[in-house]
């Protein structure tokens, strides 16, 4: 059967039954975006490709559970890919410096993950969302970048920027609050000034 017309969640249900063609179709659809994300965190391509394989291996193992939980496959894999890449990056840092915080990067409960019907809307608003990110003041964007794509905790960001933790924390919270507020507007509009 042709897989192009199936949704990611239809494919997930098939992967739960260990359908290799369905996994291959999900890979073709989602792997380029996931590898782009992983490479932003881990620029070494060999390491990034290894993490990408781990993400799909996890999908193969957990597909039955994820299918039952009715999670959005693109969201689940994107957050998992980021978590695995950051985990690897932090491990590299710990190895190099002997220091670094261990934190839980991927909560075991999944009921908070976006639902499949929400993802189409989020994907469609991606370009508007990028405008929102560009509206953030430079220092807030820098701190957010360090947190999202370099995997630093707020304490580590404060050390890296030689700023007091309270200042870094308030900047991060203000930036995330701004994003949250604007996201609500982004979700309600197609092209209005945000």
């Amino acid at each position: 059967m042709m897989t192009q017309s199936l949704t990611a969640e239809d494919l997930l249900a098939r992967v739960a039954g260990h359908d290799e063609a369905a996994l291959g179709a999900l890979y073709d659809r989602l792997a380029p975006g996931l590898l782009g994300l992983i490479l932003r965190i881990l620029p070494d391509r060999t390491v990034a490709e290894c993490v990408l394989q781990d993400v799909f291996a996890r999908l193969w193992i957990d597909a039955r559970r994820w299918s039952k939980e009715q999670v959005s496959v693109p969201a689940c894999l994107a957050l998992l890919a980021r978590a695995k890449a950051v985990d690897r990056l932090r491990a590299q840092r710990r190895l190099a410096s002997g220091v670094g915080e261990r934190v839980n990067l991927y909560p075991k409960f999944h009921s908070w993950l976006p639902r499949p019907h929400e993802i189409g809307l989020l994907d469609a608003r991606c370009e508007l969302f990028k405008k929102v990110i560009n509206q953030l003041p430079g220092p807030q964007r820098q701190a957010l970048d360090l947190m999202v794509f370099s995997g630093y905790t707020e304490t580590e960001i404060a050390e890296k920027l030689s700023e007091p933790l309270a200042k870094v924390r308030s900047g991060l919270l203000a930036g995330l609050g701004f994003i949250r507020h604007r996201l609500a507007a982004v979700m309600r509009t197609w092209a209005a000034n945000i």
Partner: protein
Amino acid sequence: MGCQHLDEYYELYLLGAIADGACLDINEHLERECPYCLERLREAAHSIYLLTLTTRPARLNPKLKLQLMKRLRRK
């Protein structure tokens, strides 16, 4: 205890960027399926998901898919 003191931390929690104290509080609320925390966490996940979409897709090495399939058959 209510959830308002956690209000600003859900995004940081999902990004693995906060200290253990706030993490433990959120974990505890999630374990008892606190509807407020779940809703806020879902909103936070929307933001984080969109942040992950701000990167450019990468070109894939075709060999990678074959290696993945081989690996999965061994599992």
